[in-house]
């Protein structure tokens, strides 16, 4: 016990660690893009196609396995205009506040008749119920067609992208494609995830 306890410094040099983390951080910041909030999670099928989707001016049509349809427009002013016009064609008068609230969320998918009520809800509630809504697109009440037509009217340069879940039955896709064909929208993109090109 007479031995003197040596005092050791417990200092750990964190500089190297800091270097590494900063490097990683830079890497992530430069290579990744932010996840867009989507009302439903869809799992697109894989393809060998390597074409990238353009950055801006996209209207994407989200189709979930049960056939519910959601849409998203990437520009805020466009969303504002589209809802305004949509209101005009269905004789619903949206207030400034409602328009603003609508334009803040990137995607939408409520039937137009219930839109006013939907926009009145707080955003957490909206996220919860939007999964059960979706844009009606059957032949008698094809609101999807109207949204699409107005979106094209508002922004001529829109690129259409269809993002559907891989388990979506084909008839639902066919309905959407038929509607697009009716609107003379004959060129569009199918969003897929990448798989490697097999050797032939």
């Amino acid at each position: 016990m007479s031995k003197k306890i040596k005092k050791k410094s417990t200092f750990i040099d964190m500089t190297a660690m800091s270097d590494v983390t900063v490097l990683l951080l830079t890497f992530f910041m430069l290579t990744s893009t932010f996840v867009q909030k989507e009302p439903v999670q869809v799992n697109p099928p894989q393809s060998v196609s390597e074409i990238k989707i353009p950055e801006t001016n996209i209207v994407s049509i989200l189709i979930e396995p049960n056939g519910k349809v959601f849409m998203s427009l990437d520009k805020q002013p466009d969303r504002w205009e589209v809802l305004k016009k949509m209101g005009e064609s269905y004789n619903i008068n949206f207030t400034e506040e409602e328009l603003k609230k609508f334009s803040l969320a990137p995607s939408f998918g409520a039937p137009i008749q219930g839109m006013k009520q939907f926009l009145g809800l707080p955003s957490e509630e909206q996220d919860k119920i939007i999964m059960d809504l979706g844009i009606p697109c059957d032949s008698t009440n094809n609101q999807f067609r109207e949204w699409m037509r107005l979106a094209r009217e508002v922004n001529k340069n829109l690129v259409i992208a269809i993002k559907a879940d891989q388990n979506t039955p084909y008839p639902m896709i066919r309905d959407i494609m038929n509607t697009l064909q009716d609107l003379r929208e004959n060129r569009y993109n199918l969003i897929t995830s990448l798989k490697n090109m097999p050797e032939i």
Partner: protein
Amino acid sequence: MAEIQQKDDGGGKKGKQKKFNIHVDFTPMVDMNMLLITFFMLCTTMSKPQTMEISMPRKDVVSEDEQEKIKASNAITVLLGKDDKVYYYFGEPTYDDPDLLKETDFSGEGLRTILLGRNQEVVQQMKELKAKREKLEVTLEQYKEQSIEIKKNKNSPVVLIKASDFSTYKNLIDALDEMQICNIGRYAIVDIVAGDLRLLQDLTHDGYAPELKEEIIYKEKQ
């Protein structure tokens, strides 16, 4: 690293060296960085979505004369059925021939071999072009132009993709994918007709067209 060692000889008074270290503690910095990394990892995606560009024919234009141009011998009809199954037949359908329709799958040995076999000329030319591109003998623009030119080959097959109501979106994309892998330049997504359903029903007895009785020879286009 994060310390500065200062040597001070104390003005040469006693000749004793005073040593003191200035440590900068980087731990909070690391903490913060880790937090930011976590945030970026959770809230961003690395992969940009890929897309497949398709153009559909216009509905209002009568495409019949265009369809006439296709030589029947070059046509391959691919039917997408239930449970990821694929069926195909060559040329003009004869609906009363039970051996016309054949079953295959989306694996490398299935549909792909059939399409590649029918498209050998184009595949060979594309291989040569790709080899040239790898040796950097052609520019990217030239490569694209030439590959379009090659795919226009008159003898290459024309594939009609007909998806039944029981197929899924994945099947459709897989079928379109095969077109790209096999370098098929001319293909179209066409609505399935009653005759094709009839063929499926005859082959599989799996409820594709329950209303069409199997004993009756279906007489479409006759």
